[in-house]
């Protein structure tokens, strides 16, 4: 297990190095000089040059890449061109909205999907299965930001149960969780639909196995047999989807934040794009890609832990 984990760790480090290089090079070719943009159209060339030097933009590219990538390793993401504030601090502030939102949505999606998938598999081919599968088909087709608007219309405007947007901060934990509830539901629904379908399919495959037949022969109902013996064996495909979903949820959170005016990473990155604050764009993108690569790594480890055969094969 240790050798396997170490090998995956080397692969993780390589992926991160290449990803950071790709992101840096892509942003490097961006037209428009951030210094000229910050100073406006009337700026003198020598003032622009002075600012370029202050921001470190006059350094050779390799040096700038190494200082940016090395800085990220130590938690120093550089200084925002626009706000003159440490990017790491700006990102950390916003992450306290985006990350809990993604995790909240992941929890909701799993909570919705497991009973739905189990129920559909246990009632395979009957009306209950058809109804759940029909609902998931619809869930997959609904864009989450549109669903978010419908939730606002119903629960915020018509019923007044929730606010239509905004975030009070974590000083008021209950109010904060309430503010993240509608966004999390909007994010979770399509993911729950996908997860429920995968779980149902994995469980149906297992229904034909001998150990389930034995369990049924011992007098367990189909649902009990699936719950006690089937679920653990269906976890591998489900784990893959949960791992993939986290990255989709983090990226999806960026869009949902726009619907609910949440001060998360989404707001930060769109402001940074419009202000040509490229170092913020670079850092947030790197962080998102890092999250995806890290979750893939953890999912791989979880596979090997759940199924020892995979350690040998890999």
């Amino acid at each position, binding site marked *: 297990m240790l050798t396997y984990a170490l090998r995956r760790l080397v*692969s993780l480090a*390589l*992926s991160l190095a*290449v*990803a950071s290089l*790709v*992101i840096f090079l*892509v*942003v490097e*070719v*961006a*037209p428009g000089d951030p210094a000229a943009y910050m100073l406006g159209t009337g700026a003198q060339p020598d003032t622009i040059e002075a600012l370029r030097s202050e921001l470190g933009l006059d350094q050779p590219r390799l040096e700038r890449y190494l200082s940016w990538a090395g800085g990220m390793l130590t938690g120093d993401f550089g200084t925002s061109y626009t706000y003159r504030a440490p990017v790491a601090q700006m990102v950390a502030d916003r992450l306290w909205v985006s990350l809990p939102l993604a995790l909240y949505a992941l929890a909701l999606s799993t909570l919705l999907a497991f009973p739905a998938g189990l129920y559909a598999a246990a009632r395979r081919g009957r009306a209950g299965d058809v109804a759940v599968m029909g609902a998931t*088909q*619809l869930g*997959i*087709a*609904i*864009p*989450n*930001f*549109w669903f978010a*608007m*419908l939730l*606002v*219309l119903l629960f915020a*405007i018509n019923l007044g149960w929730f606010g239509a947007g905004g975030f009070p901060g974590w000083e008021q934990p209950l109010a904060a969780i309430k503010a993240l509830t509608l966004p999390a539901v909007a994010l979770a629904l399509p993911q729950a639909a996908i997860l429920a*379908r*995968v779980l*149902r*399919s994995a469980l*149906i*495959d297992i229904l034909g196995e001998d150990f389930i037949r034995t369990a049924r022969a011992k007098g367990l109902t189909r649902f009990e047999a699936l719950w006690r013996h089937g679920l653990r064996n269906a976890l591998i495909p489900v784990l893959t989807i949960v791992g993939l979903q986290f*990255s*989709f949820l983090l*990226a*999806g959170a*960026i*869009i949902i934040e*726009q*619907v609910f005016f949440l001060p998360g990473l*989404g707001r930060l*990155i*769109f402001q940074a*794009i419009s202000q*040509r604050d*490229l170092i913020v*764009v670079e850092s947030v*993108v790197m962080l*998102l*890609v890092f999250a*995806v*690569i890290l979750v*893939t790594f953890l999912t791989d480890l979880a596979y090997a832990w759940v199924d020892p055969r995979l350690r040998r094969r890999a």
Partner: protein
Amino acid sequence: MTFRLLPGAVLTAIVVLAALISYVWTPGDVASVDIAAKLQSPSAAHWLGTDQLGRDILSMIMVGARTSIAVALVAVGIGMGVGVPLGLAAAALRDTWLDDVIMRGNDLVFAFPSLVIAILITAIAGPGALNAIIAIGIFNIPVFARLTRGAALSLWSRDFILAARMAGKGAPRISAEHILPNIANLLIVQGTIQFSLGILAEAGLSYVGLGAQPPVPSWGRMLAEAQTLVSIAPHVALMPGLAIVLTVLGLNLLGDGLRDVLDPRLRAVRT
């Protein structure tokens, strides 16, 4: 088996037809602003009502369908055009380091969600429909490459491929003449699924301002503009959203239906 194929095909056909008809006719002019007629509810004159500028929503949806379909279709084309040859090459070069390089590169691209690619492209080139196409297209590449490699690998050990090798055919020829036709069905089904995901992704990108820009109508931007009006004129936000849902639902049903017809073995395990 046709209970999904038929409704899927009908829904898809309606959307494609609406997009095509919009080139020659729409109920109203999407470019003309008529403030006096703004935010009207659905009526005989405007079947789906009017938006905040008095434009006919049905016409906007018809023209918006062109953007959605074009972006998603070209993105599938990019994904297939690059991903399938890569997957075929990786399978043909299995057991060599080149397979590893292709697949690790693939994993790396997979780490960039399409939204992140779109953000990067927008940072360089500014927003536009082309960004959406490239972003979704790049995201599609590893999907097709993985699928193709997996399916091709299982074929390489089959007798008819061995026979082709004994007949002196090289790997590129075998890939093109024997492997590709045998995995075409799989690619068609995946193409339909990626097409529907592309429609959703395009809507999301347009919604946050990274996709098609005014005056090109797009479903995502219609929703972004309708967001502040949702309490006074819900239909302005409902209609474009319904258009997206029905299109995606139609394509998903079509994909499932095609899978049933083209590969009966998959029926039992479909998700």
